[in-house]
């Protein structure tokens, strides 16, 4: 069971959290929506990096403070490398 450090509440068991999938997918602006192709929209909606390695993803402390945050987690080791707030860009990490 993952141990996730909520930026507010500290380390809690995984079952207190809900997974928010890949982070840093910005919703297209209205202008973009109106000019983009269906394929580009599909890219926003569905296409994912799904890396084998460090994944920048979102979690929410659903059974706790209900706050969303970003996590850099290794998808092979499950090591949580960094927890950082929403809105902050993905950290540059040494390649693991």
């Amino acid at each position, binding site marked *: 069971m993952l141990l996730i450090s909520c930026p*507010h*509440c*500290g380390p809690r*068991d995984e*079952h*207190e959290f809900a997974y928010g999938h890949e982070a840093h997918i910005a919703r297209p602006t209205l202008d973009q929506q109106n000019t983009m192709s269906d394929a580009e929209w599909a890219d926003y909606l569905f296409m994912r990096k799904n890396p084998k390695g460090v994944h920048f993803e979102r979690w929410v402390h659903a*059974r706790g*403070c*209900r*706050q969303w945050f970003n996590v850099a987690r290794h998808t092979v080791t499950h090591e949580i490398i960094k927890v950082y707030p929403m809105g902050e860009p993905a950290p540059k990490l040494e390649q693991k």
Partner: protein
Amino acid sequence: MAEAYTRRSALQHFGLTAAAAKSDVAGAEIVIGESAHRAIVNIRGNSSDAAFIAAVKSVTGVDLPVKPNTTAQSGAFRVLWLGPAEWWVVTTGGTEEKLVADLRQAFAGQHAAVVDVSESRTVITISGASARDVLARGCSLDLHPRAFGPGQCAQTGLTKANILLDQTDATPSFDIYVLKSFGDYLWQWFWLIGRDYKFAIKAQ
């Protein structure tokens, strides 16, 4: 409001008063009870805004606990940290309407919110030497005195219900705030786990 006698607590149908009368509180390893009808008001605002902190203080006398998972008390008012911009003000039942009004007035002009949630929760109290043991059956938090103590609170899970856990003294005693719809479930869960302990029911 209607006559008080028409008001029912979430767990009233379990006959807690009668059970409490028969309970041996002194010899018990755990003592559980329902503390119903508290005033619980959810407040939202910006804790880095001095005006917000001042407004809370002006109404409750409490210095807003900005440290996560802590509580602060002043007189009848207890303020519990729920999130970085969310707290509960808990006080004597029946005063929630006034509290909501006072807080709204104090927050005037700020981006803040006040929501009465008193009626949505009941409180199950648990106290006694084995209280931590019992909670460990359903709660993954570390409640060891080195890790958790009076003045701390946490929203977490207790078995399959979501709760807010507030340690009220070092006995230890805990207040467990739970949605009323889960009240039956959680109360019966305590009975289930409690069968391996000497336990007693406390009157409200």
